[in-house]
């Protein structure tokens, strides 16, 4: 049952919130030891909340949910973000982030927190503090990252949906690696935190990973509801996103990108196969698919330059944590990659940082010309593989004190298609359309113009109906 079905059952009395939560707890207890997806449970609290008359009567009343252990702060509850020193300090949330509040107000019952790489920096989920999360499709393989714990938990059937966030692909990457639906919403659609707004961490989008398109859509009506505090910056949808499921998307013009846009590496043949099959499927549904992509993406220097922004963000995050825990964060406190990036970040002068952001905005502006909202003869969607490779074995993104950046640099070949949408703020979705010869999921990505999640949901639902994936089950499944 997906979350929409579970919620309907609770509403019509077919099942109680307590029964749903107990069942989820049983599944987590059965499967999680193999996967290490859920790193902290709150089973007792969840049982009490499910049984309480105070459980909010929202659209997902009684549905069990897992939160990623990265942002989505809840007052009084642990938040470690994959970092050993926060685990040691047992850091507790000081407020409840807007996104967390929305989940709670919708009636979800939070049963635990899921694993994340330290500070969400890598497209895998192997933090030193909690150890690696396994891919339910093949133990010993990465579930992707940084929302890898959430994706492994949903893919293995522990829960129907789990919170995830995406600053460079971290919703779409694990969705691809675990065979799920993963939508990164438009910048400004979903509140990113109480302390911050869209401008201060403009790369990051919050949402969920799900098994069905309708869950992704219905959840977006929850996470992306227009705000009353005035921080909304994504265009308001004409109607609920849930209502887009099943609507005819019309005949779309879709650009096909089946190679690394910078040509800096070749992508795996399985990913090419996946995207070509998706292109054929889209054509069979009446869409026009032709090779094309926004030309500014071909600039091989763009991502390299942008790494200075990530480094600066990383340095800021460590400074910020230092302030919150009341001491300076030092080298032994964090993994070698985190330390090295923060060091690099501290060396970035303000003009370089701001210049890089300005340049990224100009490139995004230039890339925007490719889309139909800028040019009536432009494209509605961009189709690409989500990743450059199928899921890789654990240890593929190493970081040692001697060579702290090895895994980070290696990640560039794994994720050549996702970060562009974080920079431009556009929505993009990974759909589980392909399985590799080795039995591993390979997702395809569809990207739309700014604010056009409606179109992504329409075409994703159309693809889900044409090539359903609901019956595909990983070897590790509850």
């Amino acid at each position, binding site marked *: 049952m997906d979350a929409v079905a579970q919620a309907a059952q609770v509403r019509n009395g077919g099942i109680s919130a307590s029964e749903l939560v107990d069942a989820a707890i049983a599944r987590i207890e059965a499967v999680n030891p193999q996967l290490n997806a859920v790193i902290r449970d709150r089973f007792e609290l969840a049982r009490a909340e499910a049984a309480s008359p105070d459980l909010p009567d929202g659209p997902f009343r009684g549905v069990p949910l897992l939160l990623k252990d990265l942002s989505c702060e809840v007052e009084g509850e642990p938040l470690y973000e994959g970092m050993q020193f926060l685990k040691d300090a047992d850091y507790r949330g000081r407020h409840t982030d807007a996104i967390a509040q929305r989940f709670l107000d919708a009636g979800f019952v939070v049963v635990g927190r899921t694993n994340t790489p330290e500070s969400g920096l890598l497209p895998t989920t192997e933090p030193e503090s909690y150890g690696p999360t396994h891919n339910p499709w093949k133990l010993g393989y990465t579930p992707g990252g940084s929302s890898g714990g959430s994706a492994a938990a949903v893919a293995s059937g522990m829960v129907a949906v789990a919170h995830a966030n995406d600053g460079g692909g971290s919703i779409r990457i694990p969705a691809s690696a675990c065979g799920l639906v993963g939508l990164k919403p438009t*910048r*400004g659609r979903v509140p990113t935190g*109480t*302390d*911050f*707004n*869209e*401008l*201060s961490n*403009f790369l990051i989008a919050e949402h969920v990973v799900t098994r069905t398109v309708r869950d992704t859509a219905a959840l977006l009506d929850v996470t992306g509801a*227009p705000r*009353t*505090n*005035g*921080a*909304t*910056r*994504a*265009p*308001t949808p004409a109607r609920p996103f849930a209502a887009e499921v099943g609507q005819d998307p019309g005949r779309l013009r879709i650009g096909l990108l089946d190679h690394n846009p910078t040509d800096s590496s070749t992508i795996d043949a399985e990913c090419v196969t996946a995207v070509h099959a998706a292109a054929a499927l889209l054509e069979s549904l009446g869409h026009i698919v032709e090779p094309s992509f926004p030309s500014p993406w071909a600039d091989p220097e763009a991502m390299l330059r942008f790494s*200075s922004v990530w480094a*600066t*963000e990383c*340095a*800021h995050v460590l*400074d*910020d944590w230092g302030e919150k825990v009341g001491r300076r964060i030092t080298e032994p406190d964090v993994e070698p990659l985190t330390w090295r990036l923060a060091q690099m*970040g*501290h*060396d*970035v*002068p*303000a*003009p*370089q*940082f*701001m*210049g890089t952001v*300005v340049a990224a*905005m*100009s490139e*995004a*502006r*230039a*890339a*925007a*010309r490719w*889309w139909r*909202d*800028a040019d009536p003869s432009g494209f509605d969607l961009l189709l690409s593989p989500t990743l450059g490779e199928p899921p890789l074995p654990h240890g593929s993104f190493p970081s040692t004190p001697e060579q702290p950046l090895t895994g980070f640099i290696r990640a560039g070949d794994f994720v050549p298609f996702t970060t562009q949408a974080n920079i*431009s*703020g556009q929505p993009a979705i990974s759909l589980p359309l392909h399985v590799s010869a080795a039995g591993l999921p390979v997702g395809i990505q569809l990207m739309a*113009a*700014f*604010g056009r999640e409606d179109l992504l949901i329409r075409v994703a639902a159309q693809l889900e109906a044409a090539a359903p994936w609901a019956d595909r089950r990983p070897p590790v499944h509850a």
Partner: protein
Amino acid sequence: MTATTELAALDALGQAELVARGEVTPAELVEAAIARIDAVNPELNAVIHRLDGRARAQATGDVRGPFAGVPIVVKDLDGELAGAPLHLGNNLLKELDFQGTTNSYLFDKLQQAGFIIVGKTNTPEFGLQTTTEPHAYGATHNPWDVTRGPGGSSGGSAAAVAAGLVPLAHAGDGGGSIRIPASECGLFGLKPSRGRVSVGPQDGEVWNGLVARHAVTRSVRDSAAVLDAIAGAMPGDPYTAPPALGTYRDAAATDPGPLRIGLRTSALASMCEVEPECAAAAEAAAKTLESLGHKVEIASPPALDEAELVLTFLSVVGANALGLVEELGRMTGRTITADDVEPGTWALAESGRAVSGVQVLETLHAAHSWTRRVLSWWHDGGYDLLLTPTLAALPPQLGQLNPVDGDPMMATILQTPYAAFAAGFNVTGQPAASLPLQVSSAGLPIGVQLVAAHYREDLLFRVAGQLERAVPWADRRPTVWAG
């Protein structure tokens, strides 16, 4: 044809109406504006680039739109206008006679609305000052008292409109630069919400989102109708304000219901003293608002008294100034030295060299956290509007704020009273307007500022329209007037 001088008193919609009724042609409107500029601009030095030929050619062509044929001027900053000089108040660009080659979305939209741009107006170098006295082009004079400045940075635009050269002018606001000159020249000046008007295609955001662009006008309805024409997302915008439900022009014609309004007459973070006449103007406006049925209380967001942010923000200002100097290098293909910019600009940019990227991020995060605290007064506190004086001081004597080659930090301190009420709302990104409700004992305009919650320009236009109908200012004339 209506006489040139009578046209001067009409707002832009009034002039457009004459064109629509066939009583005057766009060419006649443009000729009349050119004649007024010829007659009056030498006293003011408001218009620094004449675009007579370009304007005449456009006026005789096919002009459409709600403002078809109405002549305006635009500030010599805020993006390119194809075929027009772009000097940004900088002497090097003046010497090179740097020209724009493309249109910004804003200037495109203004022309698509039917406006004919007859000139570009004076600005302090890169818009960095609250007065308009660039070394490159000299001081612009205030039409109410030519010994005084018109405010800045949109001082050339404000002086041109106040003196009746044109009915309205483009202006931009990164720290008060629409509202300050509107207050000093007796105009209506509304800074829109962050993300309301696209700053593309040249930029995604300007000054980390501090800058909002729009216009200075004599009538509220002109401001509203211009915003209707220029608002809206453009492809590639990094974020955008949610669209208004109706038109702003309709809002300007519709009284709001009873509002809950907080009055504050002390400067944000107590950063300076407030001249009694400025405080009194806001208090008088409070009485007027009460007489219109609104509830006014002495109240304001407690976060406006936090002082730390002001200091941290100066580092970001320095870093942005350095960015401007580097941009000047890219525009001209030269290595920029201290001789290429004003001493104050150079010193500010130099201060930016010591700033790190992490400091910028920290400041932005602190700013956005502060924004949430400020906005909770509107959203949780239940207030609709904040009422303040626009300025803490009356229009200054020319030379008073910007001692030539003086200590740039001293210039910053001297200009504090002019930014003290305005700049905070560039940080929050809220819409805020200056209304020309008062005149000082010496006959100088005094504006009052109304600030609304994010994206509530509609509410500002409603209450501004109501105030304009209750205490009209259209007939007030400055000493220097083109009519």
